[in-house]
């Protein structure tokens, strides 16, 4: 699904922020990406959602060498990736409904289907009463749910989330994480970057730890959340 070979990234003439990353994520895997602030988690995710090119090395995504994909084929590749940005990045003048519908519209889905699926998903994240609300009128947690709904609506093959629980309390954080677990159960590969080690420790998913621009693959040790669904899901990762 995802393979990095000796990948390096630097900004301008600065030092390498990511050094010699070599790792592989299997299809259907679920990983937490952890590491101190400034370690390069967001930078790594940006490489994954094709917002940046590595300064060296080889990235393979969906069995394609990213640098060799012709530009006109990039949109199709990107449509298979769902991204939750730390700062949501919703379109402020589009309703919650239209924000969530956007990935489907980009894929050219039928308007009747869009209406059904988007309403369903927004109801599922308990925003059924806020379909027409504009993002600036929503609370932080509500915006976060819109952002997550937008990332998952088109059933991406790869879901990337950068601090998706950064601004919400633990209770909501757990609920949102379970959304990703549900998606993961349907076969999506999930990578979640987070500072919240306490939260990570409640799930039995492997961690990717970034330190000094290098990566270490670590298995989660704690298993405080031992619910069967999560156990089963973790077994595949």
């Amino acid at each position, binding site marked *: 699904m995802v393979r990095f070979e000796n990948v390096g990234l630097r900004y301008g003439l600065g030092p390498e922020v990511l050094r010699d990353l070599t790792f592989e994520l299997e299809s259907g895997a679920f990983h937490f990406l952890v590491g101190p602030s400034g370690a390069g988690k967001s930078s790594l995710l940006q490489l994954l959602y094709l*917002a940046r090119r590595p300064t060296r090395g080889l990235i393979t995504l969906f069995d394609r060498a990213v640098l060799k994909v012709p530009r006109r084929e990039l*949109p199709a590749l990107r*449509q298979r990736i769902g991204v939750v940005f730390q700062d949501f*990045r919703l*379109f*402020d003048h589009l309703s919650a409904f239209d924000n969530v519908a*956007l*990935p489907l519209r980009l894929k050219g889905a039928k*308007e009747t289907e869009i209406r059904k699926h988007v309403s369903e998903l927004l109801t599922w994240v308990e925003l059924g009463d806020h379909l027409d609300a504009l993002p600036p009128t929503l609370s932080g947690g509500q915006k976060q749910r819109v952002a997550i709904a937008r990332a998952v609506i088109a059933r991406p093959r790869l879901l990337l989330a950068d601090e998706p629980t950064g601004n919400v309390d633990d209770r909501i954080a757990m609920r949102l994480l379970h959304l990703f677990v549900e998606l993961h159960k349907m076969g999506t590969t999930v990578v979640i970057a987070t500072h919240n080690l306490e939260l990570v420790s409640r799930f039995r998913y492997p961690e990717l730890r970034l330190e000094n621009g290098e990566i270490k693959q670590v298995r989660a040790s704690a298993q405080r959340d031992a619910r069967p669904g999560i156990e089963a899901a973790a077994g595949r990762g």
Partner: protein
Amino acid sequence: MAGHIRVLPLDRDDSRRYLPWIVAVMVYLAAMTLAGAMATASMASRWQTGLTGALTVQLQPAAETQANDGRMEAVLSILRADAAVASAEPVDEEKMLGFIQPWLGRDGLTLDLPLPRLVDVRLHDRASVDLVDLAARLEAAAPGTSVDDHARWLTGILKLARVIRFIAFGTVALIAAAAITVLVFATRAALAVHKDGIALLHIMGARNRFIAREFQVAALAQGFRGGLIGLLTALATLVALGGAGLNTDIGILPQVTLTTLQWLVLAALPPAAGAVALITARLTVLSVLARLA
């Protein structure tokens, strides 16, 4: 394009709000230029139809003025005997004085001023006369006559009309070029203003065509709206010009009016402005995005 949900708020930023007004000014100038050129063209063509098939015979005043020396009768009888001539009428002296008055003033018009006498000759449709032969016969019967078929004057008028048309089209082309330049820069400015939204759309897998459509929809609306404002202002100006008397018949000038087709040309300006704006926006966006890494 009709069902396109607009993602980028292109109507809300300043770089785009002034566009309709620029388009309005451009369309106003284009409309006025075209109206002027088209009025000149129809004026010239009316002169042409009015003057072909017509001759003017001029009878120089004799040195010793005599109101009736018989030459006029001789000229008229020769002309009326000619098979090509439909009618030959002496131009009324009062009417002649009316033509001249604007140049000489009423005071200059004394009856002792020797004036040439004119005969207005109409030919049968498609009939032609040998001007040299006719002039010779008239001169023999009545010395001091000359025949004018208006050819030189008409050629001059038509040439002038062609030059005016050429200048008008050139002016409209320049206006269009200026409008397109402004649209290109405005589109680039808008691309810069919305670069975050565009980057986000790209990350979500939007194709450049989708992003271009955002700009096209906005450009079409703004171009058309601006065109409409410009055209309505131009029409108001034309109506005001008509009201100011420039359209009224002053002496020999035919009336300045436009044909239905010419009105349609003016009416096509707002859609044309919209189309030009749309195409310019599309090409600009696609070329800028193609160069983006």
